[in-house]
């Protein structure tokens, strides 16, 4: 992802979208996450424009002003192009990242991490977190309902400061019950031998298959293409203005 070459980025985005469609996940499931990331992206872009409106000029070496806004702010094609590329980088990452999170079985993931040398404790920590997230969510839900019944109002009617204080009323018991849970779980794990040996085997471990090799090759090819383009362009940027 070192590249800012629009052509490469476009190709990667296109492939990402194709993969996502092939995966069969529905738009509805990711709608919220995408919306959230779009908002982040928007904020980022606005920030770039406000803080260095002439960044594009510096990168591409030419300046084609479309119109002047005020003070030091103008709409310049080079800047627009730069910001477009920035947006493309976000867009490239989104479908692939979503796919990764949604399609990966945490236990298989932990096993794979262990295979490449990451300590099994790290991998297992991730798997356990995922295992207990629904439980903690349920706790939170129950606690917040009980607190609501006592007048702790979390609706939008209240002022932000009040709502923050009220959130504490829910977080306090949640943290307590979570700490309780942690102690219990770690006892249970120890009693069943977790950490006994330096290594461990995994029942969910998946052996490397042909398509895994294909994926690795694909990743290398993409990287190679980016690097080649870099040499071709004399830098990370593809410059259409020359």
């Amino acid at each position, binding site marked *: 992802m070192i590249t800012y070459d629009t052509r490469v980025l476009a190709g990667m985005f296109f492939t990402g979208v194709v993969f996502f469609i092939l995966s069969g996940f529905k738009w509805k499931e990711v709608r919220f996450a995408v919306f959230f990331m779009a908002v982040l992206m928007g904020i980022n872009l606005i920030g770039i424009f406000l803080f260095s409106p002439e960044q594009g000029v510096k990168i591409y070496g030419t300046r084609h002003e479309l119109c002047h806004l005020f003070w030091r702010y103008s709409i310049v094609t080079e800047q627009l192009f730069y910001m477009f590329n920035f947006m493309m980088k976000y867009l490239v990452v989104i479908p692939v990242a979503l796919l990764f999170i949604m399609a990966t079985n945490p236990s298989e993931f932990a096993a794979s991490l262990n295979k490449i040398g990451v300590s099994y404790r790290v991998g297992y920590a991730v798997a356990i977190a995922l295992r207990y997230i629904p439980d903690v969510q349920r706790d939170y839900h129950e606690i917040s309902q009980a607190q609501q019944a006592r007048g702790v109002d979390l609706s939008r009617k209240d002022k932000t400061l009040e709502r923050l204080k009220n959130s504490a*009323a829910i977080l306090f*018991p949640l943290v307590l019950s979570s700490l309780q849970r942690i102690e219990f779980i770690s006892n249970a794990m120890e009693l069943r031998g977790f950490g006994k040996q330096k290594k461990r085997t995994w029942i969910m471990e998946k052996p490397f298959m042909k398509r895994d090799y294909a994926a690795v090759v694909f990743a290398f090819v993409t990287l190679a293409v980016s690097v080649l383009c870099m040499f071709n362009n004399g830098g990370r940027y593809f410059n259409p203005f020359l």
Partner: protein
Amino acid sequence: MLTVEELSFGYTPDKENLSDINFTIYKGEMVSIVGKNGAGKSTLAKLLCGFVTQNHGSITLKGRNLADDTIKERAGYIGYVMQNPNQMISKPMIYDEVAMSLRLKGMTEEQVQEKVHEALKICGLYPFRNWPVSALSYGQKKRVTIASILVQEPEILILDEPTAGQDFRHYTEIMEFLKELNERGITVLMITHDMHLMLEYTERSLVFSEGHMIADTTPAKLFSDPQLLRRASLKETSLFELAKRCGLDSESYIEKFIRYDRQVRNK
């Protein structure tokens, strides 16, 4: 006093967790809600308190439909005590914990103090009023949670498994305390599968199975009906078998035993 008519609810659109529930609770009753884990007991409590909204049917209190009340408003009539006190307690000091709901209502400190002390006295926690919650035993914490609900002066108290995990001595303490509350006029609904609790303290049991209410009867009758017990996932009490062995009518034997046992234990 509290009427539930044709109540139906499901967490997801394709499955109904509760179907067509009908019953009426009268003032001052002490009722047990029983059934297998997952039969819909907690769901019913949530519906009554307004934590979730029914798909169909109505809940009326003293003739007034509760559908438009918010959770907070309903809490003024129906108090809900969770099974795990640690999930309810949110303040480090007992006094603050019990006072929380009143302060949020905006009462003056004098009013708050009066009501909090009253509730603590009823719960037998007045000597501990300035203590932190961490100094209490599990049973005492349970009473703190009950006090913090009582302070809102609800007419109906719903308790989720009030005696879960307690030994006989503490179980008796809590149940006697609840009985006192009941005698003061508070209607008590208890979700439980503790058979002894049902037999000894409640005069009426609503039995749930797979989202349906399959019985509305006295505990003694319930324990004399093996088929019903099986559907409710309860066990026959050994009293039933003893009665059968001796050729006695199980229902009256069980009732006699309960009464006798109470007399003995209250001596």
